């Protein structure tokens, strides 16, 4: 899932400093699961903003709503009437949600309350880690199910580099060396010979470098 984190309340407040009434929109998708922009977080953000503004003698009126998903036009449409009389919309979704709102309500000032960080999952409750580099051409079958594109600090495909020591990456003792993990896994599977195969460079045109990407399934299109 997409992992996001809330921006400091002050930063969000600064984006809407000249508004009297705002709509805060949470999202019941990924950001609810990673506790950044669900119903509760949206209300906490609203309350924090209200307190801040009241202290400044410039009260802020808030409306809160949590969309099933902000990355689907049909759920964004459901905001309809709520949007009319607000001066701005604060989105507590990932960057996708913010853009969907901005596109749908193109005469409204739409601002992000979250920083979209990465795609990953939780290890324990309250701790999330990046797992996939979104490269558009999965190679996990060659690397023991561990993604070197994003989990190796240098995206090395024929690792490990010379900075790997005691299982950790050269950038920090808190970061596991992805290639040590790959080595251990391949070793346990008895497939170390696979690591001797030369891995060619990635075709980055399948990634961001090919420009914004699209995925199409004609068979499911209506009309």
């Amino acid at each position, binding site marked *: 899932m997409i992992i996001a984190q809330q921006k400091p309340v002050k930063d969000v407040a600064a984006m809407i400093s000249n508004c009297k009434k705002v709509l805060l929109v949470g999202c019941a998708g990924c950001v609810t699961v990673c506790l950044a922009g669900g119903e509760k977080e949206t209300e*906490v953000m609203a309350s924090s903003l*209200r*307190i801040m503004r*009241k202290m400044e003698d410039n009260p802020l009126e808030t409306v809160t709503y949590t969309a099933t998903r902000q990355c689907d036009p049909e759920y964004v449409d459901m905001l309809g009437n709520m949007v009319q009389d607000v001066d701005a919309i604060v989105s507590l979704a990932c960057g996708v949600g913010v853009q969907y709102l901005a596109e749908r309500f193109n005469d409204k000032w739409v601002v992000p309350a979250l920083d979209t960080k990465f795609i990953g999952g939780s290890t324990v409750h309250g701790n999330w880690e990046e797992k996939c580099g979104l490269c558009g051409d999965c190679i996990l079958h060659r690397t023991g199910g561990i993604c070197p594109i994003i989990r190796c600090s240098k995206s090395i495909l024929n690792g490990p580099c010379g900075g790997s020591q005691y299982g950790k990456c050269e950038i920090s003792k808190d970061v596991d060396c992805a290639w040590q993990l790959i080595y251990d896994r391949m070793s346990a599977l008895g497939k170390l010979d696979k690591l001797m195969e030369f891995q060619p460079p990635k075709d980055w045109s399948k990634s961001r470098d090919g420009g914004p990407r699209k995925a199409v399934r004609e068979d499911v299109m209506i009309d």
Partner: protein
Amino acid sequence: MRLQYAPNVRIVEMPCSGTIDHRVLLQTFEDGADGVFVAGCMEGDCHFLKGNFRAKKRVHQVKKILDEIGFGGDRLDFFNLSAAQGQRFAEIVKIMTDRVMELGPNPLNKSAKKEGGAA
């Protein structure tokens, strides 16, 4: 046992301190409370094992938010307290009321009189 404690304290009962929600805490301040403290059971005495630990963490998170937005996290605190410690309760009320006296009224509530709340 009859103990004296400040009359301007309002008690909100909850089944377990672990049910406290960030939103409720923020709401009390929006509604004008000058200070709030959450009393959870003694460590190790939670009927639900970890409710009081969770409450404490949440209170600290809300304190952080209050500091961040300039309201001041000092107006909120967490104490461990058992039902048998009436004396200690009176003490805590005193600590909090003294603190709130010092801090002055809730800044959102400029003209209002001093008021305290407890949950």
